[in-house]
């Protein structure tokens, strides 16, 4: 396998899945015509180098996405700093003529009509601490999706890398209620199993695991969702967003778009086509390097069983490779309707239901 740097020098078209001419035309038309939403991205800020957001803009534009949910990431779970980051991100979007802010599902539809790209904001994880009045403050400032926990314990629940497997706390139940009332979408991607199941049960709205895969395909990795969790999610009308995170879909030294498609196939078979979406979690820069540099201090990959075997995801390493998801779905024999649901339709539906 070639290095990440060399891989990214390959012309874009050559990184894509090969298709017959007819399939190729179909994939292109589908991708151009559909409302495409990435439920989970980290593209506005490079966590390793001091690169300006503008350098990433051409890649985002080439992705053909209608819009995406960009994450504000307070690893320290401090509220004030997380809102400052949100402010900086919003400024970048507002100042750029080709982007627009999204606060409601309809904004994605408007973006599609106007040819702009819409950006909605999520909190990964929530930084409310013990003060649930902050839920409304964050909503007021533009947050529409929030993860209940990251990989470790907080006041509301246990993360997937925690030594215990506690359910939601009383405060956690209240937080779910507040988010339901306000119309903030609950993401359980990093939560431990019991916290996930409790939140699904407690929520009156559908919820999401917006950047995950199936544990059944990679049993060692606690960050992925069990069949039980996926079935509970779907029973609630929720959506599983399949990620493209290197080393979180398989253990192999070579990983890429095919792994992502395997997880899509598995989860579609398990819970049905109406409950599967895409949340790539693609970063501005080199994700494996971020994982490597923050492993000891922050992520503690060991705690949930992640190994750093592959250096990147061929075919879906960079945002600009997003059309390859549609191509991959064509190659796996999905119908046009099914593909439109996976690449944006289901995401739009749940945003309409929960956020409005």
């Amino acid at each position: 396998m070639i290095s990440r740097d060399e891989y990214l020098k390959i012309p874009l078209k050559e990184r894509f899945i090969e298709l017959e001419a007819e399939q190729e035309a179909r994939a292109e038309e589908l991708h151009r015509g559909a409302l495409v939403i990435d439920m989970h991205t980290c593209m506005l800020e490079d966590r390793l180098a001091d690169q300006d957001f503008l350098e990433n803009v051409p890649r985002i534009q080439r992705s053909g996405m209608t819009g995406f949910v960009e994450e504000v990431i307070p690893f320290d779970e401090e509220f004030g700093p997380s809102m400052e980051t949100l402010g900086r991100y919003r400024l970048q979007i507002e100042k750029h003529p080709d982007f627009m802010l999204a606060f409601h599902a309809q904004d994605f539809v408007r973006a599609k009509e106007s040819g702009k790209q819409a950006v909605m904001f999520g909190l990964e994880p929530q930084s409310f601490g013990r003060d649930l009045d902050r839920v409304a403050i964050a909503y007021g400032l533009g947050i529409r999706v929030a993860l209940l926990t990251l990989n470790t314990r907080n006041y509301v629940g246990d993360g997937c890398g925690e030594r215990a497997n506690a359910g939601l706390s009383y405060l956690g139940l209240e937080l779910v209620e507040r988010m339901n009332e306000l119309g903030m979408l609950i993401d359980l991607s990093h939560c431990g199993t019991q916290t996930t199941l409790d939140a699904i049960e407690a929520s009156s709205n559908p919820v999401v695991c917006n950047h995950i895969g199936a544990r059944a395909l990679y049993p060692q990795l606690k960050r992925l969702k069990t069949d039980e969790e996926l079935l509970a999610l779907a029973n609630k009308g929720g959506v599983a967003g399949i990620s493209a995170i290197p080393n979180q879909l398989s253990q192999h030294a070579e990983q890429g778009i095919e792994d992502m498609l395997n997880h899509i196939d598995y989860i579609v078979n398990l819970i049905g086509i109406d409950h599967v979406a895409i949340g790539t979690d693609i970063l501005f820069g080199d994700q494996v390097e971020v994982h490597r540099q923050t492993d000891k201090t922050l992520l503690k990959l060991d705690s949930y069983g992640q190994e750093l075997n592959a250096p990147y995801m061929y075919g879906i390493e960079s945002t600009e490779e997003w059309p390859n998801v549609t191509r991959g779905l064509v190659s796996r024999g999905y119908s046009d309707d099914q593909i439109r649901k996976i690449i944006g339709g289901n995401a739009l539906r749940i945003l309409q239901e929960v956020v409005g």
Partner: protein
Amino acid sequence: MLSREKYLELPIEERFVPLGEEDRKRAERLFDGLVTIDMHTHIFGSVHFHFEYEPVRQSGMTCCFEAVPALSEDFDESMELLGRYRALVEAEPGLVTAVRAKDIRKAKLDGKQAVMYQLEPQTMGRDLSRIDAAYGLGIRMMLLTFNTRNYVGDGCGERTNSGLSYLGIEMVERLNEIGIMIDLSHCGVQTSLDAIKFSKDPVLFNHTGARALNPAVTRLKTDEQIRAVADKGGLIGISAIPNQLSSQPDQGIDDMLNHIEYVANLVGIEHVGIGLDKTFHDQVAFHRKLAASKSVDLEKSGITLAAGYMYGIESPLEWRNIVRGLVSRGYSDDEIEKIVSGNALRVMEEVIG
């Protein structure tokens, strides 16, 4: 039972456990001669800040281990409160700040009262470097959790009963290294048992009672928990909080003595201490207010506000009645010394020096 107001109008001698002349003299001699340590006090009020020196002086305690009650679990708030407490102690010639066991013995010799500081609950959030800062500013004991969940564990009033988190284990290690005592009084069962297991030092339940005597209250400790603390060489401080030791409408010094007796019989007199958790004010009224504001959910810990006060030990002013009560129950001078300070000093010497 008298109302709290009528009770407080009684001359102090009439509020005390009745003793024969000889026993009364023995109790007085013991109280005046012994170091007395209250392992969990709220002489600055709890939540609502209020301080008067005179009642503290009258209580006659040698050492108050004062709890800084930042229920917000906000670090800055807890350190500001600590600063305010310390400033008042500095300004009062009869009081002295203590940060190790020998400071308490010295205070007794100098005819002063010592004040030590603990955090109820700890306010470190996810930043364990704050432990060093808290130590530097004078904190020598921390509760790992209050009644609900935080980053390290579950409280006794939480809907789940999970153990320590990874961060919790790191916190225990750091507290051991630096020499801060660990109090588990408000922790849930599994979080307590995990902390006892992972701690290298003895740990405490510094203001509690035996669950066996009042099974409804999850804030009290099971025999298993009490044994585990004792096996670790730790201390069980018996409290005088109304409506925890008993759920009867009449509660007082006898309930406290019952819990002391139960724990002493279960794990030995070497593991029993006193941590009253009293203010100088109407604690039940305060609990009512907390319950109404929903800032502390008493029901979830099985507490009903049945009694209006604790006869014989309603405030630290009645501290000497503990010694009278112990005399009345037939404890020897040596045993009484252990309960009122000896055991606490032993644990302090071992953990904080």
